[in-house]
């Protein structure tokens, strides 16, 4: 034992003109529960595919347990839920899970994997007759059936309703609490917050933050201030303020700040005429997206 479970070192991936992952280095140790967070198209899925050896890095390298991720010895120790992957519709749930069990050297009993994924009642159902949320649970059963040391979950709650998502995330948390290494991608900040002790924020192929959820939240928490101005807003009047993001569209100004009182005091002092002033708690989602935008332009 010992050594990291997952390692990317200086890994880049280029698709034609697009640099989907740009020189990413990160290490995930056994037992960690890591959320990779970022807007759509940020490079989360490509990063996961590099870790899994499903894509070859254009430069740099990926390692699983110190092995080439394509090595069947490495693949035998992981479980994977991928986005948009299909499964044979004409097999029953228990048949498919049983089949996947045979791929692994030390599988769980198929019934146990099905039960852990909460699909016990659907064991005899044909895969094609499952609902969207049940499909996600089937993928979880398939990811779990090899009793993996590391679970890779790429946007696992897509297609679930709010309640299903909450339960699912709780179950993933329980799996992590029992010592499994979990790497999860999501664009829901709340999921990362609920689950992970470490959050890696990816934007446009770069890692822009890698710390605890509390530290990440401290960076994005704040107030949203919106107002309109009689004349198109002069950007000079808004310069030098402690803002985490700023959007100006003609007369309309939207800004995010951790210090709304100081910002407003300064704006009044500068004599900016404001109408329809509103101060509200920033939507976490929106604040987060604003943060990733801000980081890149900075």
């Amino acid at each position, binding site marked *: 034992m010992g050594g990291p479970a997952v390692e990317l070192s200086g890994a880049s991936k280029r698709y034609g003109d697009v640099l989907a992952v740009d020189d990413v280095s990160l290490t995930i140790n056994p037992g960690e529960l890591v959320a990779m967070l970022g807007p759509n198209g940020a490079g989360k899925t490509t990063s996961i595919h590099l870790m*899994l050896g*499903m*894509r*070859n890095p254009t430069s740099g390298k990926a390692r699983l347990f110190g092995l080439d991720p394509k090595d*069947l*010895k490495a*693949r*035998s120790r*992981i479980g*994977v839920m*991928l986005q*948009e*992957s*299909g*499964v*044979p*519709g*004409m*097999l029953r749930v228990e*048949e*498919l899970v*049983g*089949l*996947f069990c*045979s*791929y*692994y*050297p*030390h*599988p769980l009993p198929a019934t146990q994997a099905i039960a852990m994924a909460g699909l016990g009642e659907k064991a005899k159902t044909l895969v094609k007759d499952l609902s969207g949320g049940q499909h996600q649970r089937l*993928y979880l059963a*398939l990811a779990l059936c*090899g009793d993996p040391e590391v679970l*890779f979950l790429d946007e696992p709650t897509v297609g679930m309703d709010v309640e299903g998502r909450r339960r699912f995330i709780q179950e993933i948390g329980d799996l992590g609490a029992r010592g499994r290494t979990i790497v999860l991608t999501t664009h829901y900040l709340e999921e990362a917050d609920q689950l992970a002790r470490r959050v890696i924020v990816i934007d446009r192929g770069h890692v822009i933050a890698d710390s605890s959820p509390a530290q990440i939240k401290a960076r994005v928490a704040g107030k949203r201030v919106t107002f309109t101005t009689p004349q198109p807003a002069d950007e000079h009047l808004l310069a030098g303020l402690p803002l985490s993001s700023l959007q100006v569209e003609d007369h309309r100004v939207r800004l995010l700040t951790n210090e709304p009182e100081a910002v407003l005091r300064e704006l009044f002092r500068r004599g900016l005429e404001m109408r329809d002033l509103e101060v509200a708690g920033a939507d976490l989602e929106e604040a987060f997206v604003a943060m990733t935008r801000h980081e890149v332009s900075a």
Partner: protein
Amino acid sequence: MSAVAARPSTAPLWPMLSRQTYAEFIKLIRVPAFSVTSIVLPSMFYAFIGLGSAKEPLFPGAQVTFGQYFLASMALYGVANVMVLGFGISLANERGQKQDLLMKSTPLPAPVYFAAKALSALAVAFIAIVVLSIFASIAGGVQLGASQWLTLFGRAMLCSIPFIGLGFALGYLAGPNSAPAVTNLIYLPTAFASGLFFPLQLLPRFLQDIAPYLPLYRAAHLVWNSVGVPENDLSADWLYMAGYGVGFFLLALWAYRRDQGKKFN
């Protein structure tokens, strides 16, 4: 600790192959569009075309009856049909649904996956000729010696192998929507032009000229001979089949690599 060190690090291959083959088989059988056409169609053609003159000699003075000739023809049609359509269309569909994505992330070795597909298709092909043979014996009164039956089954199954390669190649070259049309467009006319439905002598001159180069025509020689149609030189036919086999599998390998390069590079 030593017990931990002794734990195998990958799963054993034989149980994996047998489970995968079983899964592939039930996947095929549960799609009526596939199982019914593969298993029933050769017998149906036999009912429509073969039964009427099953007892008559193939040509004046021949030892072989039309019933025997057509049994051999449809046996070949049936097995190759399973390989080209079954293998080809099911692969194209699975690619269309991105089933290869999740498989790629598992420790299932690709050769096991393809061997399972081939074995399950061979099983369906075998069922198709058993059904056809029973139908031809009972409804058409076709009689063959034990060694003739054995040779017919053996050669039909052997001749299906190059078509596994062809089906495999089509599965990776055709899109999921166009696969059924493309395979039928290639397969049906080829079967016709190879003399599987009517003896070549009855077909237009240009088809008679093309036929010797078609894999189904070469395979047909082998199966017709097994029911008693005299052939002078079978070695050329075997050679052609081996050549087609190598050619189709190389094409399949190229198509597979091309597809993998696009998705997983």
